[in-house]
């Protein structure tokens, strides 16, 4: 890979208008061209866009896909999410590391290939999976891992790894991925016929206020996980006086075990973009941003193509569908590997070219969001549902679902089952029905909504998937009875420790302390009071952290304590008073013994 030159870096900045707010695209561009963003490059970028070098550095070092040190021409990012681990991650990682002669995180001596691990890349139904530069490889085995590395050594061209493409638009020449959709159940809202332009025509006939009323009457709630009523959010943004407003689509699904947005983006891009256009019309926006997670870069060219197609058809751009003065266009903002950017204020920071730090709320984005303008952030699925509501009506939508949660939900089901994949089901469905549909084998627990939500045991398999009972943004992971719940909690804690942005202490430090506490219990050194201390620390972290990550990060531990109490209690015991088993005097004095040449009298 070429060494970065000042003129080359300046060129990248110039193409993005030397615009400070487009820093993400600039640093991603530099990373891709030169394999790293060196301190010299940062200096050049800072001068070009009129900021300080530390501002550039703070962004570069925040995102896991960017690096200050050179990476290999090919970077293999092996997904180390729990579902991958369940399907054999350890053996695959070991085989690939041995084949390359490096350890995880290292680059081969010739600078050709880097081996790294990364959290959930949205392929839990086809795990173990990896990203090889932008190319997704799925269903890895140790043998396939070794083979892949031998191939890469020969050609260093990841696209050549795709020998067989997946179904649906995965076979589209602009996608060309081995990814499979695994759509197991189609419902009335998403995976069915959709004729571009019709929903938008209906919306234009209604007028902006009536569109918001329809969405409110349909009682559409945000599909990303938080479940905030979309109509309320839109109305608030519309009511905030401002010269500009923004419509942002959150396509940064990073919650471990979620992959339904990937399938919606692949199969329903028109429905999604049309929903965004309708929302833009209702709120009074002229500009939209799709924040696409870096892991889904393989969909970028395809989505750009769809956007262009819609511009050509008069469905995006100026005077849409011939309506004078209705202008709306969309750009795609790529992320670069940061779980926290799925949180809407962190996502906005990232779009602004900053570290993906969450912002304080209030003010809420609908009052002051992207660049200080009123901004609506909704999930991919929410926009898809918007289009369908415009076609079928609010009453039709509201008639489906359960209680206060209307419509259907697209779920990503993975883990110990024979039919992992995407299921569109009415809200109110029970976990037990999902286990049957997915052909789970000997299920012992389910993680509903990813590690930031809740782990349930068989006693709650009869509950309901909806916002009043078991809420989920789409992630459902099934665990059979042989799985060790304590180990699962510990692994998810590792994930949150890695993904904490470090801004506030309870999250940055507290999670590490919690991990130590869990480890003490799991290793058999714990006492009953340690369980109380774990509970207290968990609550403390969730009550004093600023954003959703810290507030939710102790949920795997609390959930395990609550639902699998006996497991933990079986591990702890009252100890005889004396030194803790975790403290080892002999190793603590060994330095001094060597130094002074005599033995400790207490060991």
């Amino acid at each position, binding site marked *: 890979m070429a060494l970065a030159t000042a003129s080359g870096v300046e060129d990248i900045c110039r193409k993005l208008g030397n615009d400070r707010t487009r820093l993400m695209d600039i640093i991603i561009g530099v990373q891709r061209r030169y394999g790293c963003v060196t301190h010299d490059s940062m200096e050049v970028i800072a001068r070009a866009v009129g900021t300080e070098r530390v501002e550039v550095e703070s962004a570069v070092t925040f995102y896991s896909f960017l690096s200050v040190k050179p990476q290999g021409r090919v970077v293999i990012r092996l997904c180390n999410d729990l579902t991958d681990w369940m399907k054999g991650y350890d053996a695959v990682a070991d085989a690939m590391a041995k084949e390359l002669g490096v350890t995880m995180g290292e680059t081969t001596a010739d600078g050709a290939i880097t081996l790294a691990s990364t959290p959930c890349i949205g392929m839990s139904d086809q795990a173990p999976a990896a990203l090889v530069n932008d190319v997704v490889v799925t269903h890895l085995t140790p043998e396939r891992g070794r083979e892949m590395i031998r191939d890469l050594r020969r050609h260093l061209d990841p696209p050549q790894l795709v020998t067989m493409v997946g179904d649906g638009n995965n076979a589209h020449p602009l996608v060309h991925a081995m990814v499979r959709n695994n759509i197991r159940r189609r419902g009335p809202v998403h995976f069915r016929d959709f004729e571009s332009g019709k929903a938008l025509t209906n919306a234009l006939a209604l007028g902006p206020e009536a569109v918001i009323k329809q969405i409110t009457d349909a009682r559409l709630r945000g599909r990303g996980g938080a479940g905030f009523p979309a109509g309320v959010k839109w109305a608030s943004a519309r009511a905030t006086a401002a010269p500009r407003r923004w419509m942002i689509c959150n396509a940064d699904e990073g919650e471990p075990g979620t992959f339904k947005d990937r399938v919606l983006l692949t199969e329903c891009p028109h429905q999604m973009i049309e929903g965004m256009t309708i929302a833009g019309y209702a709120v009074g926006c002229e500009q939209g941003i799709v924040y696409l997670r870096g892991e889904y870069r393989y969909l970028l060219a395809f989505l750009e193509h769809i956007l262009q197609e819609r511009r050509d058809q008069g469905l995006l751009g100026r005077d849409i569908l011939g309506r004078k003065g209705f202008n709306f266009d969309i750009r795609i903002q790529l992320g670069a590997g940061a779980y926290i950017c799925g949180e809407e204020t962190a996502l906005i920071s990232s779009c602004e070219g900053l570290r993906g730090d969450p912002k304080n709320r209030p003010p809420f984005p609908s009052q002051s969001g992207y660049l200080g303008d009123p901004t609506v952030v909704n999930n991919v699925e929410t926009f898809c549902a918007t289009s369908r509501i415009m076609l079928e009506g609010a009453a039709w939508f509201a008639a489906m679902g359960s209680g206060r949660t209307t419509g259907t939900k697209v779920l990503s089901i993975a883990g110990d089952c024979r039919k992992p994949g995407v299921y569109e089901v009415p809200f109110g469905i029970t976990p037990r029905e999902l286990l049957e549909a997915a052909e789970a084998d000997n299920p012992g627990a389910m993680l509903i909504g990813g590690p930031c939500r809740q782990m349930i045991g068989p006693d709650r398999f009869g509950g309901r998937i909806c916002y009043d009972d078991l809420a989920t943004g789409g992630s459902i992971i099934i665990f059979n009875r042989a799985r060790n719940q304590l180990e699962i909690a510990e692994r998810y804690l590792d994930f949150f420790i890695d993904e904490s942005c470090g801004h506030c202490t309870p999250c940055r430090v507290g999670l590490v302390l919690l991990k130590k506490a869990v480890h003490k219990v799991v290793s058999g050194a714990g006492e009953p009071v340690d369980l109380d201390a774990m509970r207290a620390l968990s609550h403390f972290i969730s009550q004093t952290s600023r954003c959703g990550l810290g507030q939710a990060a102790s949920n795997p531990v609390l959930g395990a304590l609550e639902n699998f109490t006996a497991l933990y209690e079986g591990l702890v015991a009252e100890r005889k*008073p004396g030194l803790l088993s975790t403290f080892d*005097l002999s190793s603590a*004095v060994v330095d001094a013994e060597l130094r002074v*040449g005599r033995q*400790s009298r207490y060991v």
Partner: protein
Amino acid sequence: MTRKPRIATVSLAGCFGCHMSLLDIDERILALAELVEFDRSPINDFKEFDGRCDIGLIEGGCCNEENVHVLEDFRKHCDLIVSLGDCAINGGIPAMRNHVPLRECLEEAYLRSPGVYNPGGVIPNAPELPLLLHRVYPCHEVVKVDVVIPGCPPSADAIFTSLLALVKREPVALAYANLKYD
């Protein structure tokens, strides 16, 4: 007549500031003396335990093997172990050496530091000197700790209020003013 609750205290890797703060309860020490008996403590200069204690107050963390031994002894003799002050709770000032290897610490202190007069270049090593640990440990990493009273030092009010509650086996509830340090 029922036995008075017994208290033992010790300063490990601390500066005795917490003990000074304990003395700072002024004339209330008379009230305390009515309520409790002191077992081993620098206050009465008893060096060994005389029997079972209700409360053991620990100032300072563990920087050497003897600290560990004493703390273990306290744990075995006391119903409640109280980490008194920031060094006991976090390691405090002594733990600043935790980022420097032991050898460098000793050489800096006895050989290289400005003003050191040590013509023989000797690092003290008399057999009665306890061996230093490779780092300073807060008490709860060495034994189970039941109660913490934060502060550097904790104020006399915080110590007195806590002790009264502990003697009565009540939960310790310190007022905000007792936990506010600026």
